[in-house]
């Protein structure tokens, strides 16, 4: 039994679990965990890799055919810096895919909505497949959709917090009204959080910390893979919603049956 593929830009992904590459105890372990996760889209920070160097440890380990690289702009503080970094990433990593992240605040790494929208608009014009990391802000997500981003990536809760879907009410609105795929990014700390996001109808989730710092990252990666598949399958199978309204008789509408 397979879940539906997810189309973003010109690619179709069988796996709806996107992953990050930071915080692992070694690149070899990162590779094993990401392979086990089934993830086909992995984000990598431009600042962490030396793209000129063919022996770059991270890039060497991400060379597997299962992985599509999603370079990210972590470290930039403004739209201008993001656009420049994106062009460097495109040249160095030979992909026009980009996770746009502009968090001028290095403490909580929260995204700057104004700079993000500005940069997204310009990057789309420059031919990038833009996936912006944003707050769970439904209006911002629509504005980003209008400038042509390929997907939106609202956060579930503060990045690295492992707190789950604290922004659930807003994520539901984003999912309900988005015409582009919605990838819940940041804050997903347990497979149950990932399953919850998928059951809600998120198109994918992005997980990094929870896998990277688990006692056994490979097994945790598999746990997330299963949770994402289970959640998605439940969504596709039209999960019955709990209801407080079930009543046998219809006192208010019985007259219509006469």
């Amino acid at each position, binding site marked *: 039994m397979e879940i539906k593929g997810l189309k973003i830009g010109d690619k179709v992904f069988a796996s709806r679990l996107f992953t990050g590459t930071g*915080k*692992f*105890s070694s690149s070899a372990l990162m590779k094993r965990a990401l392979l086990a996760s089934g993830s086909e889209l992995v984000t990598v920070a431009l600042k*962490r890799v030396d793209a000129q160097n063919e022996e770059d440890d991270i890039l060497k380990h991400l060379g597997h055919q299962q992985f599509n690289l999603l370079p990210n702009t972590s470290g930039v503080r403004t739209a201008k810096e993001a656009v*420049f970094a994106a062009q*460097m990433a495109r040249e160095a990593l030979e992909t026009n895919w980009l996770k746009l992240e502009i968090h001028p605040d290095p403490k909580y790494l929260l995204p700057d909505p104004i700079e993000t929208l500005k940069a997204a608009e310009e990057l789309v014009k420059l031919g990038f497949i833009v996936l912006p990391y944003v707050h769970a802000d439904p209006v911002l997500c629509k504005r980003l959709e209008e400038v042509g981003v390929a997907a939106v990536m609202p956060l579930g809760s503060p990045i690295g917090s492992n707190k789950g879907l604290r922004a659930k009410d807003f994520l539901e609105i984003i999912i309900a009204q988005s015409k582009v795929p919605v990838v819940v990014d940041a804050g997903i700390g347990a497979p149950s959080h990932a399953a919850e996001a998928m059951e809600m109808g998120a198109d994918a989730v992005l997980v990094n910390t929870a896998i990277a*710092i688990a006692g056994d990252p490979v097994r945790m990666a598999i746990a997330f893979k299963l949770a994402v598949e289970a959640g998605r399958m439940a969504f596709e199978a039209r999960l019955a919603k709990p209801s407080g309204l079930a009543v046998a008789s219809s006192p208010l509408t019985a007259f219509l049956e006469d």
Partner: protein
Amino acid sequence: MNDTMFKELFDTYDWDEVKASIYAKTERDVIEALNKTHRDLEDFKALISPAALPFLEEMSQLSHALTLKRFGRTMQMYVPLYLSNECQNICNYCGFSFDNHIKRKTLTDDEILKEVAVIKEWGYEHVLLVTGEASQTVGVPYLKHAVQLIREHFANISIEVQPLEENEYHELSVEGLNAVLVYQETYHKDNYKTHHPKGKKSNFYYRLETPDRLGKAGVHKIGLGVLLGLEDWRVDSFFTALHLDYLEKTYWQTKYAVSFPRLRPAEGVLLPKMELRDKDLAQLICAYRLFNGEVELSISTRENEKFRNNIIKLGITSISAGSKTNPGGYSVEPESLEQFAISDERTPAEVATMLKQNGYEPVWKDWDLALMTTSHDH
């Protein structure tokens, strides 16, 4: 725009009152601090107080978990590159002190590049340039030229030099400077003058306001610290934490780091006024992490092998290895005057192996000049 300065806040505190309140903290205060998720400056006081020492194992476990969550199983590698030991300041704890009558050296371009070749060979991408304070020889023009000279070789350049003006910091940022380390040495205003009797460094408030100038200049990262042992390290650490807290709220786009230089014997200098034992330093590092989950905490080769092997799990996020503290120390002139003696003589490769054995990935590159608009014009 921010026009506040830390001095205004600092002047509302009194050293002796702060000291008394730290030493008055009780076991109950410590337990309360340990049980919180967001800890304030009063909690920090409790955690650095003698009352917290019996809780060192609990503090260590919490610190380890918090660090793991934020930084993962990684350790940033960096190395100092001493450019000059010329200095016009008299500092009674430093090997470079003006009154220390030993031959001085400032590296030429060729010499800098020879040193660069050695540390690049070891794998370093993050470098810390260090000088004394000698405005004629190692002023802003020299520093600017040095950054220009080496920037194609490194992903991340920091400096630890004399305090500069805001526009000078901006000028260096444009060339690719990422971080500035400026240690207050001590926040004890009166004793600061005895430790720094002569030279520009003797101006306490000019140094105190340096991080404000860095924040206003938009420098990406500011490193803070005191010379532990110069005065009561608990009180000095409280003021460092106060400074950090103020800076984070004022210059919220800036990253912060704290270092823990412990006063060590150098040629012809004084002994610590208050000894900081290994367990005190471990307690202090954990207290910082419990107080601030995001700040980078750094440990240098001032500390010995055994201590470094173990402290990495207690909150540390960056580590130097193979360091020389004298200009030319890597290849050009290994015998020149050093700033202080190092205690961990292992090579960077040996330290990297130790990290891996402890389940940490040594990170050599975590920045890229491409991320800075200011340097794009090159």
